[in-house]
């Protein structure tokens, strides 16, 4: 499984007065199972970028390779690409249309012309993955459930295609804290136990810090950083310049250090901070 974007640029409404360059010379290479986060200010081109990864948008110039096949050339290759690279849109629950949850999740596998048994198996598997009980929910209408559950049905609808890579465009936007946590847990499980590469578009640095192994930072249609979280978050000033910020914990650790506590200010997760402070406490570095 590999995904490569080479010199990809995209211009919306080309050759009209409303022309807008949304992506400028993007280069990305993904060749192993990874948990990647894409962050960037509103309008920096994140959604535009991810739609290039399964051929929903075609680059104005540049190429996209999936498993070494150039998908910008013909339709059949793009169709195959969509099986390998699943994309869950922002507010994905708006795409639901069937009478029952089962039928809606089965839409993808049906388009792949799978057998009925296979479809049923995939639907039940996908539903369990997102934490919806198969027997309890399969015959219910996707419009009678809560917003968070609808979003999970939509995610299951993409998972049932069994993609090698799943891209989620702000999957937690507009959900309550519990709904957010449940969805993020499901996503992390996918990555950990099913060996699926996850690409998560997010505005939430805490989310990203907890899960991602690689962070791509976008600004005005270009990539300005593509590195491990520790490296990205160590440049908090640069992030602030483009309207983002490091996770709160990172600021806390810096503040503690400034006040004379002997802690590592590169730490950016709650778990890491906890460990560090415990260690410090045991060393006797904190007087309570």
């Amino acid at each position, binding site marked *: 499984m590999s995904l490569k974007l080479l010199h990809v640029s995209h211009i919306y409404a080309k050759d009209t007065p409303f022309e807008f360059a949304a992506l400028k010379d993007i280069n990305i290479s993904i060749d192993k199972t990874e948990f990647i986060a894409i962050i960037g200010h509103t309008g920096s081109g994140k959604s535009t970028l991810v739609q290039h990864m399964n051929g929903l948008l075609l680059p104005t110039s540049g190429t996209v390779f999936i498993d070494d096949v150039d998908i910008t050339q013909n339709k059949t290759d793009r169709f195959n690409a969509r099986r390998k690279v699943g994309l869950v849109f922002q507010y994905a629950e708006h*795409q639901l*249309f069937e009478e029952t949850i089962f039928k809606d999740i089965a839409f993808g596998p049906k388009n792949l012309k799978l057998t009925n048994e296979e479809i049923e198996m995939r639907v039940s598997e996908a539903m369990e993955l997102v934490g919806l009980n198969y027997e309890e929910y399969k015959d219910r209408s996707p419009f009678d459930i809560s917003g968070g559950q609808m979003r999970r049905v939509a995610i299951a609808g993409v998972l049932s*295609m069994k993609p090698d890579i799943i891209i989620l465009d702000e999957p937690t936007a507009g959900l309550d804290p519990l709904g957010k946590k449940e969805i993020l847990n499901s996503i992390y499980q996918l990555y950990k136990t099913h060996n699926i590469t996850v690409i998560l578009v997010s505005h939430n640095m805490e989310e990203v810090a907890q899960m991602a192994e690689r962070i791509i930072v976008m600004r005005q249609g270009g990539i300005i950083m593509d590195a491990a979280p520790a490296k990205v978050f160590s440049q908090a000033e640069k992030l602030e310049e483009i309207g983002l910020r490091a996770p709160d914990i990172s600021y806390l650790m810096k503040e503690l250090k400034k006040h004379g506590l002997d802690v590592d200010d590169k730490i950016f997760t709650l778990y890491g901070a906890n460990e560090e402070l415990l260690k410090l406490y045991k060393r006797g570095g904190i007087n309570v």
Partner: protein
Amino acid sequence: MFKDITIGQYYPANSPIHDLDPRTKIVYTFVYIIVLFFANNIAGYAIALLFLALLIYLSNIPLKFVFKSVKAIIIIILITVILNVFVTPGYILFKIGPLKVTDAGLINAAFMAVRLIMLIIGTSIMTLTTSPISLTDGMEYCMRRIPGMRAYAHELAMMMTIALRFIPTLMEEADKIMKAQKARGADFETGGIFKKAKSVVPILVPLFIGSFKRADELAMAMEARCYRGGEGRTRLNELTYQKGDTVAYIVTAVMTAMIIASRFLLLLNIPMK
């Protein structure tokens, strides 16, 4: 793909025509349409054409955009021309099979085509130079003048304004839903008519649900701000006539007079055809 469609083809520019009150433009367009049917000889058409040319010149709109509207109805014009050529009785010039081509037919067809083209261009100048919102404003004012329409003028105008406001939103939404279904392997391009018709269901259902939800929310938001329809409602920006509008009304009157007068040129024994 939906993004490419433009509706209410407003062309923003600076021109005396753009600056006119929307009511003036609506009245002018109305009068122009009616007056066009009064023209019955070359003189009449020439006058109408002259005023149209003046209008286009003043409006600062590239000719390309002006003629775009004609392209849309080219088929209708062709059908009208063909029908006119063959069914008008008169001196037979030649025959194609059972069909007779007459001199009167040719003249009629030419006049008809010119009339249709001028009609379309005349009205599209109005939509090109007036933003949809001020156009509906103007319509509301005009409708209030029509006896019996007064009670509905505001509601109709409000409906139009909301519809115009939501067309781009809906198109964006349709585009997004279509992509989302494509991401799930949907195929909207291949297959016969039946298959294609079936394939729009996954787009239409979410689109309708979204629209109803939006309508419901908008209604709620309007009621929350005490919207009660048109009764006793004042507006933020009252339309007021400027000097340019007076000039435009005078020009309209002159044009009307001239075209009507042209009908009588024949009676005065000045040969025109």
